[in-house]
């Protein structure tokens, strides 16, 4: 309709938030492009490269762990009704609402100094805040697989496990995959819990903060841009995968 002023007004208001999110991304990337030298220098900074390596390593390890434990859990949540199921589902969603610094404190209180300042500590902090993405995506993926397909596979001679690996898992894979990438992104975005549990070994997201505190904004910007580009790449791949699997 041509004379839809209400929607136009709504769109106008809503545009504010879209710009609010878009603007900082555009500004930081374009400013850095004008400061090419600093970016190059940062890319040769041993400390930066080490911290990036640590970030990638720990978040990838987190993703693998949450896949190993999260996919079976997602399958059980999708296929079985049991007492306490809604409690389990609630527990899985709890990490989203707990302040990140508190997550760090909780982990230290529970596992004590054994995890302090270690890769294990980083991974544990990351796992706590990011595992729900894999679990929920796996559950949704399996829910979308018609149970009749498993039934038919079994009457055709496949064992329960065989039916899982030949039918349910391949079909849920796009959803599980996008959940795993979300887990990876959430893991690499975590700062608060890691600051408490493991300031060392240094991760890139913590290094951003340290550079900011020690050398100021200009020093922390290039590594921020590198992290943003990394995150956005992951994000675009994720969108593309989800879109492709929806159309498949």
């Amino acid at each position, binding site marked *: 309709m041509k004379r839809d002023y209400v929607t136009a007004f709504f769109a106008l208001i809503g545009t504010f938030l879209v710009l609010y999110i878009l603007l900082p991304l555009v500004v930081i990337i374009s400013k850095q492009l004008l400061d090419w030298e600093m970016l190059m220098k940062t890319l040769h900074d041993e400390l930066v490269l080490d911290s990036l390596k640590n970030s990638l390593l720990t978040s990838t390890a987190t993703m693998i762990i949450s896949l190993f434990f999260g996919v079976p859990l997602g399958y059980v949540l999708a296929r079985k009704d049991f007492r306490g199921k809604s409690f389990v589902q609630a527990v899985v969603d709890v990490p989203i609402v707990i302040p990140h610094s508190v997550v760090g404190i909780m982990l230290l209180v529970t596992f004590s100094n054994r995890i302090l300042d270690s890769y294990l500590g980083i991974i544990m902090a990351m796992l706590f805040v990011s595992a729900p993405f894999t679990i929920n995506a796996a559950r949704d993926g399996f829910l979308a697989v*018609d149970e*009749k*397909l498993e*039934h*038919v*596979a*079994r*009457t*055709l*001679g*496949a*064992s*329960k496990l*065989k039916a899982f690996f*030949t*039918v349910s898992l*391949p*079909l849920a894979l796009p959803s599980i995959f996008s959940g795993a990438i979300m887990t990876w992104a959430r893991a690499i975005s975590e700062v608060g819990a890691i600051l408490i549990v493991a300031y060392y070994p240094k991760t890139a997201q913590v290094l951003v903060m340290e550079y900011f505190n020690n050398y100021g904004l200009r020093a922390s910007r290039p590594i921020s841009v590198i992290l943003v580009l990394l995150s956005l790449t992951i994000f675009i791949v994720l969108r593309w995968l989800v879109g492709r699997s929806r159309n498949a």
Partner: protein
Amino acid sequence: MLRVENVNKDWKEFKLREISFEVNKGEYFIILGPSGAGKTLLLEVIAGIFIPDSGRIFMNDEDITFLPPEKRDLAYIPQNYALFPHMRVYDNIAYGLKVRKTPKSEVEKKVKEIAEILGISHLLHRKPKTLSGGEAQRVAIARALVLEPKLLLLDEPFANLDVQTKAKLIQEMKRWRRELNFTALHVTHSFEEAVSLGDRVGVMLNGRLIQTGEVREVFGKPKNEEVARFLGFENIIEGIAEGRILKANGILIELPIEVKGKVRIGIRPEEIIISNEPIKTSARNEFKAKVLAIEDLGSLIRLTLDIGGIELKAFITRSSLIEMAIKEGKEVYASFKATAIHVF
């Protein structure tokens, strides 16, 4: 071959109550019932997807009640066909063979053979979602039959197809049966499927198997009012067709179309005309009939007639009854138009 004994099961809003029946080797057994009667649940219990709350299931006298589905040597085709969407047609059909670790060359030979018989050789490289309903159904049947299962379970196999495809597949199903000689248990709400395909039929209402028997017997002599009301179609005649003529129990009936071989025809009771004298009209089929019974249905009267050993039901109005002085035992003429005949 398959024997179901006193099976009870409750699942969600569906239920099975004291289900007992047998399917013989080589037989095509149809379970006929309205939606919600529990037909799908019964198939799932037989397939091993659910364990019955009580009762036993035997296959060739072996108790399979608690056997997992993969050990039962039967094939289940659910209503939506459940083709594996991530596999091509070839891999769908080969699935059961591969699971059994059949040598690759044999898999290929068997898949090609069954695809040939079912007329889907040209589809082997397609993905399931590019198939039409009729094609998908053929693939589902091929995937099941390639394993030469002891028993084929079919859940409303023709329900989602358009009329032409459905009619064609029913005819083809008869041919596949002759060629592959399988045993089938087919559940449906369609009388047409029951009459066209069934050797025997069981009527299922509200989770109970009310009546089982030969198709003509069940349609002709419903056990109780519930079954009769459900079946509606009261005159089913079986015979051998030769062109436009059907020979049934010594009488000859003119058909609206040319067919050949054993067929069943149906005529609705309201389409049969009764007269005291033979008449010469466009109604091509006329028979001398004896009135066996007169039932008052309110605004209508139902007559049971005997024509040369075949029983026919006919509806007439009360005024006809009085005017024509029809009484039990009286001889009248019953006629119906060839065009009123439904050939199954």
